[in-house]
């Protein structure tokens, strides 16, 4: 179905090959995962299959590529569209329309298919992929997971033989990943060929047939999925990969401990979402200084809003924060909280990393800036433009600006979504370094491996309330694990149930 022989590719702006001498054969109906560190060429390889190379990205390509009997370089993208469906990493940017129905119909409309036929097909796809409750909605009202499912539906509308997914789970929480798994399983059951590039592979256990590990533009090794999913986190780490299964994460030691008994305290926090009866109510929660508290919870529990509130970014949010000098409102300067946002590129403004951090210190303190950059291992990047960095690097620069501003409370909103093992561990190390100076660090996260790597405490939020909190000792860690496991499993049971019917 997919045949790639001796493919080499170099992007126009790049000086080295992104792919060198890659060979790949995928049989019809196979589900193949591409994995490996960022920059290993897995995304580039997906672009060879869906034709974005050579039609959209400019560069030098050689080698033989055949997909469904077509040669992408000899066929235009609209000729490939009915054969190959694609889903991309960021659910926010891949939507062309503002309503879900239009988005689903988009590919068919481009092929000039009659409206009646499109409507029938739309119903079939919505039923098959369980999207019926998402039809006729404004895309702006969808969560990231819902958008990603609509994107999957849109990719299926032309009934393609091959589906290419480029890091589809990066921005999703566990419940949404569970639903994504169902969709991929459905495709597999329908006999479609699926190629997925991905960092976190645990959700594909039982679906993936082969795992292909890439390193610096070549296929490093190919692992049979049984063998891969039986390996431990340590074995995966040797290959530069994230833990293969949930059990492998659970089997690891956790976690760092922090015994310090000073806290940053939030009291009487109260916020109502506009035009909704829902809100966030927190009578008291304390975050340990010198420690890192993970905030976990289902999608829509109010974690991100909570994070923005305690940093004083939400107007209409009542409550106080006490950093040890008596209670003060969230927005009071200069000691308010500092947030590293989910989309971190929105908070970097200067022309170099050095200036970015310098600008955040209170008195343009160059010495302090150098110290901070060194402590977060950013000295080599000091002269780069912050917006030219990779996602994980940008997270760490934003963290550095937060340290430079000398705030006592530091909040990170999903810092590791879409990061590979190496970058995730770098962020974890930076977070640990940030906490070591006696700050209270709070991390909203869906990533158990990240929690294991750097958190000392946890707090669980549901429906705008904190329902559980504690240190990440053995008992705490098992609570966190069972939360994630339950979120994922609930959907797996649904899936098995459907399979029987």
């Amino acid at each position, binding site marked *: 179905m997919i045949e790639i022989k001796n493919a080499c590719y170099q992007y126009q702006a790049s000086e080295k090959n992104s792919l060198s001498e890659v060979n790949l054969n995928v049989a019809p109906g196979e589900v193949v995962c591409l994995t490996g560190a960022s920059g290993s060429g897995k995304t580039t390889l997906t672009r060879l299959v869906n034709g974005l190379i*050579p039609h959209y990205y400019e560069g030098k*390509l*050689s*080698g*033989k590529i055949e997909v469904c009997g077509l040669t992408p370089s000899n066929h235009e993208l609209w000729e490939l569209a009915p054969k190959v469906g694609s889903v991309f990493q960021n659910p926010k940017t891949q939507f062309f329309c503002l309503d879900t129905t239009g988005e689903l119909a988009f590919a068919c409309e481009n092929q000039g298919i009659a409206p009646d036929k499109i409507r029938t097909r739309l119903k079939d796809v919505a039923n098959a992929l369980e999207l019926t409750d998402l039809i006729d909605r404004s895309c702006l009202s969808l969560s990231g997971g819902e958008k990603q499912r609509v994107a999957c539906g849109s990719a299926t509308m032309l009934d393609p033989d091959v589906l290419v997914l480029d890091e589809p789970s990066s921005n999703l929480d566990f419940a949404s990943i569970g639903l994504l798994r169902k969709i991929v399983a459905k495709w597999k059951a329908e006999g479609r060929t699926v190629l997925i590039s991905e960092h976190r592979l645990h959700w594909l256990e039982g679906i993936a047939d082969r795992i292909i590990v890439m390193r610096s533009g070549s296929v490093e090794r190919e692992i049979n999925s049984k063998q891969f999913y039986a390996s431990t986190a340590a074995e995966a780490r040797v290959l530069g990969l994230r833990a293969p299964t949930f059990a492998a994460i659970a089997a690891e030691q956790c976690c760092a401990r922090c015994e310090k008994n000073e806290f940053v305290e939030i009291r009487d926090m109260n916020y109502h979402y506009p035009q909704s009866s829902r809100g966030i109510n927190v009578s008291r929660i304390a975050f340990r200084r010198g420690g890192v508290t993970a905030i976990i919870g289902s999608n829509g529990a109010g974690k991100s809003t909570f994070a923005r509130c305690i940093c004083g970014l939400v107007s209409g949010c009542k409550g106080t924060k006490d950093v040890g000098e008596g209670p003060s409102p969230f927005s009071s300067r200069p000691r308010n909280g500092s947030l590293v946002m989910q989309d971190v590129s929105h908070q970097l403004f200067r*022309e170099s990393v050095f200036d970015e951090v310098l600008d955040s210190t209170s008195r343009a303190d160059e010495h302090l800036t150098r110290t901070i950059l060194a402590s977060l291992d950013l000295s080599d990047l000091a002269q780069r*433009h912050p917006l*030219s960095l990779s996602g994980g690097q940008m997270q760490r620069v934003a963290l550095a600006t937060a340290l430079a501003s000398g705030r006592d409370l530091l909040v990170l909103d999903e810092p590791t979504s879409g990061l590979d093992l190496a970058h995730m561990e770098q962020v974890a190390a930076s977070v640990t370094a940030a906490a070591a100076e006696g700050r209270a660090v709070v991390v909203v996260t869906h990533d158990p491996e990240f929690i294991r790597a750097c958190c000392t405490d946890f707090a669980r939020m549901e429906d705008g309330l904190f329902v559980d909190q504690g240190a990440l000792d053995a008992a705490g860690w098992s609570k966190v694990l069972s939360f994630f496991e339950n979120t994922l499993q609930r959907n797996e049971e649904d899936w098995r149930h459907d399979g029987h019917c």
Partner: protein
Amino acid sequence: MPETPSVKKKGLQPKDLINIGIFTALYFIIIMAVAMLGYVPIFIPLLSVICPLIGGIPYMLYITKVRHFGMVFIMGTILGLLMGLGGMGVYAFITGPVCGLLADLVLRSGDYNSAGRAIISHGVLSVWLIGNYIPIVMNRASYFAGIASGYGQEYANALSSYIPDWSLLPLALAACIAGCIGAVIGKKLLHKHFERAGIA
């Protein structure tokens, strides 16, 4: 194994059309954000200067992303269309495409590769804004119709002469110069940020 060079195509491709849409959105939003100043009516003439000054920033980035004839023409057409649909009358729908087309011609004379032509072309494009002032100037007499009946036609005429017909010309000239200055600022930011961030 034969090397396939990347496919080069002439004219506006779908990805160019998408970029045109994005930058027109940015340009329009910036104009609207600045135009909020227009709620204080004394600022209304100033808008023809401030809008092009800031508009130069996205514009200079825009012409690094699309380099084909028609890019500014379509942008001007859509800006005019939006002004029309937003209830500002049909005048901007004439000045928009006309100034866009002229700006495109200026760019083409520099083969879409000359910084100087790019700066001038933004000056030319900026003149489209006067489409929004045409009704104000044309209609000024009726604002003072009431005075004419009370104080006599002469008094009203004298007042009207404070805004003569040719007052559109200095506005257009100011917009053009501000457009060029805005483009120079845009060029500076292009070097300072966008090229280094790897998006220009």
